[in-house]
């Protein structure tokens, strides 16, 4: 018994973390859980509704459409950014004065705040005065991201690729520059082609950092809010309304706290599930 009482001291040391996590994550999350199972009226009047909101959200066509848009967007940017990032990393110099120049250039887009990126592209892509919009139009393309869904998607994707490919580049570059010179010498002696070097040495050696790159890009793009919100505001119509934008519209625009809370939780679960799936699939070989 006495041993047990002396052990209680340990709680003191854990306390700061418990408090931090409680205020940071648990309490806000539980508030959301609280909203998600109740109907909210004015004057703080609540009625318990059980899983009604969850059922409603899961069956709503609006949610399905946003989720589909979100998945499409995330897939497209992963398909573009990962290979492009790897390709850029492979062509970057490995030594010499240009290394730091390239690294700084690559890091630049990552340093710009998200809403600034949105605002920049908003102006850059304006069809009448923006450099991009004007150029595309004068080249004969019918481009107007404020009116046409296709233009809007093109702009949102281009903006994300511009903003975030650098992250993939930096991670892939770290992976590729940690490969010992001897691997390249061995391949040279064998007479391996440059494609074989990429396929059988560089890519396998980059596997771990690429896993991290894919996970980071997946999570970030799945939660994307600020940039498309500033750029298109989710429009034209609903065509670039991704999950987080839709969520904010429901919660703050319509003030439907119940459905919004339920949607938040579902959204959270989807991200958690997909990340876990990605990670286990990609790490399957490593565990052998």
């Amino acid at each position, binding site marked *: 018994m006495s041993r047990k009482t002396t052990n209680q001291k340990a709680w003191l040391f854990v306390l700061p973390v418990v408090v931090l996590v409680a205020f940071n994550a648990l309490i806000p999350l539980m508030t959301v859980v609280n909203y998600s199972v109740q109907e909210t009226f004015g004057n703080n009047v609540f009625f318990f509704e059980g899983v009604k909101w969850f059922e409603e959200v899961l069956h709503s066509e609006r949610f399905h459409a946003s989720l589909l848009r979100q998945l499409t967007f995330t897939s497209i940017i992963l398909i573009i950014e990962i290979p492009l990032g790897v390709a850029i990393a492979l062509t970057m110099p490995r030594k010499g004065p240009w290394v730091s120049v390239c690294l700084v250039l690559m890091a630049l887009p990552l340093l710009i705040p998200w809403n600034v990126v949105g605002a920049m592209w908003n102006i850059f892509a304006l069809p009448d005065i923006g450099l991009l919009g004007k150029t595309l139009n004068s080249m004969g393309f019918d481009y107007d991201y404020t009116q046409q869904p296709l233009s809007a998607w093109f702009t949102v994707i281009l903006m994300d690729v511009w903003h975030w490919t650098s992250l993939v580049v930096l991670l892939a570059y770290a992976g590729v520059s940690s490969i010992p010179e001897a691997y390249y010498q061995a391949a040279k*002696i*064998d007479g*391996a082609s440059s494609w074989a070097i990429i396929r059988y040495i560089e890519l396998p050696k980059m596997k771990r950092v690429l896993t991290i790159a894919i996970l980071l890009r997946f999570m970030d793009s799945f939660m994307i809010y600020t940039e498309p919100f500033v750029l298109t505001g989710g429009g034209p119509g609903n065509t670039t309304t991704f999950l987080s934008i839709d969520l904010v519209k429901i919660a703050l625009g319509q003030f439907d706290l119940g459905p919004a809370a339920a949607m938040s939780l579902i959204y959270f679960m989807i991200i958690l599930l997909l990340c876990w799936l990605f990670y286990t699939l990609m790490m399957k070989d490593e565990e052998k």
Partner: protein
Amino acid sequence: MSLEFKNIVKRVDSETHIYATDLKIEDGGFNILLGTTLSGKTTLLHLMAGLDKPTSGELWFNGKNVTGVPAQKRNVSMVHQQFINYPNFTVFENIASPLRISRMPSPEINSRVQKVSELLKLTPLLQRNPSELSGGQQQRTALARALVKDADLVLLDEPLANLDFKLREELRDELPRIFGDRHCTVVYATSEPSEALLLGGHTATLHEGRVTQFGETSKIYRHPKDLQSAKVFSDPPINSAKIEKQGGTFTLNEAISWPVLEKHNTMRDGTYTVGIRPHHISTLAGSENMTSIKGKVVTTEFSGSESTVHFGVGDQTWVSQSRGIHPIEIGATTDFYLDISRCLYFDTNNELVSL
């Protein structure tokens, strides 16, 4: 089979990595490049492999000038200090990879891989991935890959350096058997004199980008051409000091002198440098050719069966290595016994005095 360096120089920017080098490796077999880190071993291997081009000079292999020929056209193979294998190939595919690149038919690849994996004891591991192997097994795989294509020239760049002691000994003992009946020239770079002696063959001693001596390993160990070669080929480093020969006596300082042996009688009087290997200085009195000298003990190291004592001689520190454990107090002045018949004498140009 022969490999010849003709006046080869290698400079990178303004730094000279290899000074004008002439080296002729005649009859194939096992050749060792012995030198410390940055002595130019790896640069020489890269030049031999064709991974690097010499700044000037020519490289001849089997009677052909191969100076500008790139690595993949030379039929060489190389094993590195790090364990280099294709990470997502099985051991079998790793060993087969050079043959696949040269588009050899599958049945022949199979039989060759089987044969070489038996030689290297890899047969039960053929379906594994390199990441599932121990360091020793990974290096065996790399060795197998180097052997499977029957290269004319096999280059080994400190292949055992990253292995732990037990595995290193095990693989080193096997090397002569592995290369025994192969018709190829082997060049093995190492920084350990004891490894060179164990492997035999021929040795080239390297110091700061120069080949100081080349010859049969045991011969150059016993008769280093100059002080530098002797230093490279001694671990712990050879003890040396200036001495004066006057008539029948060598004098190191007021306190230390010893008689000139009969075989050294032909040496003229004058100043020399004496070199004596640590294991020819003992803390125990021994046979007739021993001269006792006094030294102040600086540090002592005891391994299982050897005592290494660092002691002061004049203003220098010498090392003595003797069998058995002989505890000696640090700071004490004690007798050391020098086997003067094993002393090497170098003239003022640091060249060995021929006897």
